[in-house]
Each structure stands twice: as structure tokens, then as C-alpha cells.
């Protein structure tokens, strides 16, 4: 194992510069918020890693920090051609708030959902106004994720239901600045048999796909379900989408670990799921992906390793996914293959995952991790991440623009 790792490192050092053409030309990073310093810690960690979004001319980043000693949710925005973020606003109320999920609506508007005092809260944001906050349900709920078709918000979250947490979907009507709750339903009609956690949702024209972590087999697996086209709040029985390891690599015990699935719609009705997966258990977590298969009995197809073989020398963390209508698809994560934690990307080209690149400006000394990515309508890449000079030191939120090369 050690020889194999050393061989890969030597091969990496000895290899000529990559001939692969990166699809994006990256600008220099810029700070998302000027509020940082000792004892201030920022987090980009929504379920599904939706902390950045682009609407028309506006780029928005949502995060949580403890600048006034209480964790709260903040949003900063910038115009595309501006060199700095401004217009920073506090989104959450007076309680302890966590894990904001951000989605773009039309006309420079955004919707956010977050957890505050163990309840899910939501509001809309326009260029000039903050919509009223609505709070959902009466049970202990966490880990919200959002999707939208501009008239309607779809919210998923994990809510305590008896002994275990269970995934719910809530339909929300957008009415100007106001949000109005409509139907809500459990994504799995059967009562939870163990924890259901960290849901994320993708909206297609005529259906939604929800994926989450599920502990029903005695270890964590990724499961997904799609709803019925004719009955919005009726989901087909969920299916496991994270496969087991090959028989030669079977772990001892109930099963291997997986964590934190992300979904992204792309192309014409396609969806990619990506997550951290420890099926090669001696190597730690790798990033695996699977494609939604409309019309197939098996909801998602075979699992594919996203990172290249050099990724085997390091562990991969914090998978984030973005796609666009033209079919572009990119997965981001962080790993320490170059010594420090750097932001890495791989994109789909010629029907396979590209060699990995570390993003210039989101690499180098110190820690660069917790990426969140989005592709705009032109295929440009927008990336935000957490930067630190030391592991437990104060943090910053950084942003970087990748212009699509024609």
C-alpha cells in the first residue's frame, strides 16, 4: 500500500504538465466578508452544500458565523463585474442559527432556508428588501435544502419523528416577498427505521429527486426517491444509490461509511449525485457519483469514482456539485494530496471525469476547504470556500470566479 502510494507520488512529480485544457480561467480570489479576526469562525456547510447562487447579475454567498458570539446567518452579494462583495445582511433572527441553504430565483432574488432554535426558517431576499421570516413545524428539525422553479419553493429537511429523524418535503408558494406553506409530506412513506439525515433536493420539469443519508442497514448509505408526476406529494419507494464495495474489499462489519450527498440537475432532465464514500476503506473517503436514470427501474446508475488516481494518496472531503442547462457538470471537494488542504475540481468531459485540478487561488499554504460551487447560465464557475492559515485558527470566506473559456 505504502509502495503504491509512493509510486503514485513519484509519478505525479515526474509527470509533465497536464495537456488537458481547463475549461475555466480563474480570476484572483476576493473576500466575501470583511468581518473576520480572532474568535470569529465562518461555516459553509448546508446540507447539499448550497451556499452560493447566481441570479441574473448578482452573485450571492450565505454562511454562518459567530461575530457577535451567537451563530447567525449572513448573506453577501456582488454584481458580476464588481470587484468586491457588499450589501451584507443578517438573514437569521435572534436565535442560534445554522446551515443556511441558498437558491437563486429570477431577477436578482434569492431564497434562504436555515435552522434556528431547532426549527426551519425561510425568507426571500430581493436587491432592495428582505422578506418576512417564516418558521416551519413544531418538531425538532434541521439540515434544510432548497429547490425552486421560481413560483414555488421546495424545501427538504430532517425532522425528529419519534425515535428517529425522518426526511420531509414542504411545498411553499412564493407570493411577492411573502412565503406561504402548502403541502408537506414524508419522502419515505414508511416510518423511519433509523436516522434519515442531510437531505438535498433537485427539481426537474415534472418531478423532484430527493437524496439523503440513511442508517437503516446499521451503517450509513445514500438513498434517493422521486415523486409521482401526477401526485406531487407521493414519492415512489426510496432506493439505495450508494453501492457496496467489491467483494475483494469488503469491510469487516455491517458496511462501509458514506457521508453528505449533493445533487445537481444538468442538461435536459439529468441529475448527478455525489458524496464522500469509504468503500476503499484503507484509503479513507473518496468522492463517488451516480447519475439519475429517468425511466429506469433503478433510480440511479452505477457508482463512479470522481477523483483521479492521484487522489488515492489523500482523503477527499466536502463534495459539492454544479451543472448547467448545456450539460456541463463539475464536482468540487477539498483534499491534502499536495500537503495542504486545497480546493479540487473534476468535470465531465468525453463521458468520463477529467483529471483533477487544484483551483489556482484556492490552493497553497494554509487550509482551503469547505467549497461550494455554482455554474451560471453561461457556464462560468462561481466558487466560495473557507480559508484559514491554521487548522483551528480564525477563518475567512473567499470567492473566486472561473470564466468559461470558449
Amino acid at each position, binding site marked *: 500500500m505504502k509502495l503504491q502510494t509512493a509510486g503514485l507520488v513519484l509519478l505525479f512529480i515526474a509527470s509533465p504538465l497536464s495537456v488537458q485544457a481547463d475549461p475555466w480561467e480563474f480570476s484572483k480570489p476576493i473576500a466575501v466578508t470583511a468581518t473576520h479576526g480572532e*474568535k470569529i*469562525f465562518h*461555516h459553509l*456547510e448546508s446540507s447539499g452544500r448550497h451556499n452560493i447562487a447566481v441570479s441574473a447579475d448578482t452573485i450571492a454567498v450565505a454562511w454562518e458565523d*459567530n461575530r457577535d*458570539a451567537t*451563530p447567525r446567518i449572513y448573506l453577501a452579494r456582488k454584481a458580476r463585474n464588481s470587484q468586491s462583495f457588499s450589501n451584507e445582511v443578517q438573514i437569521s433572527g435572534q436565535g442560534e442559527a*445554522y446551515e443556511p441553504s441558498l437558491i437563486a430565483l429570477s431577477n436578482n432574488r434569492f431564497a434562504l432556508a436555515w435552522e434556528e432554535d431547532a426549527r426551519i426558517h425561510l425568507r426571500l431576499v430581493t436587491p432592495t428588501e428582505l422578506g418576512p421570516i417564516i418558521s416551519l413545524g413544531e418538531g*425538532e428539525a*434541521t*439540515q434544510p435544502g432548497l429547490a425552486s422553479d421560481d413560483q414555488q419553493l421546495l424545501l427538504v429537511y430532517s425532522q*425528529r419523528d419519534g*425515535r*428517529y429523524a425522518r426526511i420531509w418535503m414542504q411545498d411553499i408558494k412564493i407570493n411577492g416577498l411573502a412565503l406561504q406553506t402548502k403541502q408537506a409530506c414524508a419522502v419515505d412513506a414508511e416510518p423511519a427505521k*433509523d*436516522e434519515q*439525515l*442531510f437531505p438535498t433536493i433537485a427539481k426537474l420539469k415534472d418531478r423532484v429527486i430527493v437524496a439523503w*443519508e440513511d*442508517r437503516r*442497514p*446499521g*451503517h*450509513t448509505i445514500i438513498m434517493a426517491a422521486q415523486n409521482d408526476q401526477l401526485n406531487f406529494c407521493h414519492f415512489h419507494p426510496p432506493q439505495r444509490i450508494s453501492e457496496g464495495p467489491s467483494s475483494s474489499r469488503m*469491510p*469487516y*462489519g*455491517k*458496511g462501509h*461509511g*458514506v*457521508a*453528505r450527498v449533493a445533487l445537481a440537475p444538468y442538461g435536459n432532465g439529468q441529475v448527478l449525485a455525489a458524496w464522500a464514500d*469509504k468503500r476503499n*476503506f*484503507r*484509503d*479513507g*473517503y473518496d468522492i463517488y457519483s451516480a447519475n439519475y436514470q429517468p425511466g429506469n427501474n433503478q433510480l440511479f446508475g452505477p457508482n463512479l469514482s470522481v477523483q483521479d488516481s492521484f487522489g488515492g494518496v489523500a*482523503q477527499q*472531503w466536502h463534495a459539492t456539485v454544479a451543472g448547467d442547462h448545456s450539460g456541463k457538470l463539475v464536482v468540487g471537494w477539498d483534499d491534502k494530496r499536495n500537503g495542504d488542504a486545497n480546493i479540487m475540481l473534476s468535470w465531465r468531459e468525453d463521458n468520463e471525469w477529467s483529471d483533477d485540478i487544484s483551483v489556482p487561488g484556492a490552493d497553497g499554504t494554509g487550509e482551503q476547504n469547505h467549497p461550494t460551487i455554482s455554474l451560471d447560465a453561461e457556464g462560468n464557475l462561481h466558487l466560495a470556500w473557507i480559508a484559514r492559515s491554521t*487548522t*483551528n485558527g480564525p477563518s475567512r470566506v473567499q470567492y473566486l470566479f472561473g470564466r468559461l473559456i470558449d
Partner: protein
Amino acid sequence: MRAVLLIISTLFSLAAMAEPPNGYPFQAFDKAMQQARSENKPLFVYFGRYGCGYCEKTNKEAFSDKQVREIYSKNYVLAYVDSESGKRLRLPSGERVTEREVGTRYNAFVTPVFTFMTADGKPLLRLVGVQRIEDLQQADNKVQRLLNKAARL
């Protein structure tokens, strides 16, 4: 009513937990760090995960030993981290992190990983994978020698 809520809350916390060994005073990482600082004791941090087979094996075959239980309960403040859990902790720095993030920072890329740490979280020794009784005894000896040497300096 309070009693009912307490029972429900206990059931929830049990449901969310993975499997530290029975009979040991394992506690959450942040609470253990606080205790280690106030008592100036080293930490022994068990990074496991839900359904971890090698954790179960180590629990059955090594942590079940009476002498191991006595040594580890006496010499260390014990912390258990479910490396895939979203449970929130607050570090002495004031930062709020999840158990998974603690696992990431201490590179718990496989489970189990056992890390001996100073009270302020500096790693002293790390054991990766399934452990036998003698492995845990030898590791304790080594850590105690390290600590004694450091105390003499």
C-alpha cells in the same frame, strides 16, 4: 412532563450515537476537552462511526478487558467522536464544529482511529484500525513515558 421529555431526549441521543465501548466514561469531545483542561489530564479520543465493524471488534476484544478499562478510565479523559455525525460541539476556541468536522481535522479517514492528545488537543500518539489488548496497553505505556519525559523537561 419534564420526565417524559427527558426520556424522549435520551432516546433521541441514543439513536444518534454510534458505539463507544460499554463501561467507560466516554463523553462528547468538547466536554472531554473541558474536563481534560480543568484536570490537566491527557485525552484519549475514539474516532468511530455508525456501523463500524472494526470498532465493534476492538470493543469486544480489547476494551472488554478489565485492566484496559481501569488504565484508560484512570489515565485519560475519554472522548468519543462519530466521524460521520452532524452533532454540534463547541471547541475551547469558541468555534462551533460538527463531530464529522472534528474527524476531518484529526484525519479520521478510517475507523476506528484512537488519538491520544494533550488537554489542548495536540496529538501525542495515534492508533489506526483494530486494536488488541496488548496494543492498548503498550500505547498507554508509551504515552505515559512521553508525558513523564515532558514533565521532567
